C-alpha cells in the first residue's frame, strides 16, 4: 500500500541555519515524489518533483530508494520559507499526501 510519512509536524530553525524536512514513503512500484508548499494565506503549490532534479528557491530533494526517503533540504533558511510543506507520492491515478510539516524560520 502507498504511504507517505512526515514524522515532524512542527519544525523551527533560525534564519541562516540549514533545514531538512523529512519524508519517508512506502510504495511497491517505482516512486514519483513531489514536495508541495502552502504559504500563509496562499494556495497549495508545487515546489519541486524528484524527476526534475532541480533546485527551487534554494530547496533540493534527493530520492533515496534504499532508505525510501525524499527529504527536502536547504542550506540556509530564510524567513520567507516559513510555510506548510507536504510530501506527496504519485500512486496509480492519485497523489498521496503526507500529513505535512509546518516550518517556522525564526529571525
Amino acid at each position, binding site marked *: 500500500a502507498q504511504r507517505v510519512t512526515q514524522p515532524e509536524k512542527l519544525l523551527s530553525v533560525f534564519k541562516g541555519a540549514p533545514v531538512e524536512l523529512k519524508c519517508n514513503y512506502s510504495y511497491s512500484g517505482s516512486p*514519483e515524489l513531489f514536495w508541495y508548499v502552502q504559504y500563509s494565506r*496562499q*494556495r*497549495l*503549490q*508545487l515546489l519541486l*518533483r524528484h524527476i526534475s532534479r532541480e533546485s527551487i528557491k534554494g530547496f533540493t530533494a534527493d530520492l533515496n530508494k534504499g532508505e525510501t526517503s525524499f527529504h527536502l533540504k536547504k542550506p540556509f533558511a530564510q524567513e520567507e520559507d516559513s510555510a*506548510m510543506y*507536504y510530501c506527496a507520492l*504519485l500512486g*496509480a*491515478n*492519485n*497523489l*498521496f*499526501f503526507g*500529513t*505535512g510539516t*509546518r516550518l517556522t524560520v525564526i529571525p
Partner: protein
Amino acid sequence: DTAVSQTPKYLVTQMGNDKSIKCEQNLGHDTMYWYKQDSKKFLKIMFSYNNKELIINETVPNRFSPKSPDKAHLNLHINSLELGDSAVYFCASSQDRTGGETQYFGPGTRLLVL
C-alpha cells in the same frame, strides 16, 4: 486570470443542511480533483474526474456527490451536513489523468458545520 477558482471561500452552515462548493479551472486541463484537509492538515483525495468521467472515488460518505457539467467545472454537493464535515476543501486540476503532471490547486473552501 485565476487558474483554479473555488466559491465560496468560506461556508458556515447548520447540521443537516445541503450545500454545494463550486470549482472552475481555465487551464484547459482534462482532470479535476477534490481534496479534504482536516484539522490535522492531512490532505486526502475524495474524487477525481477526467473529461467529466469519474475515475477516482475514495471511501467517502455517499452524502458527498461530485458533479461535472463540463471538463472545466467540478462541483461538490454535500447532503445532510455533519459536524465532522468541517474542513477545508481543495479543488485541483491536472492535464492528464494519472496525476503525474503538476496539480494546480484552488484557494480552498473553509467549511464550518455548526
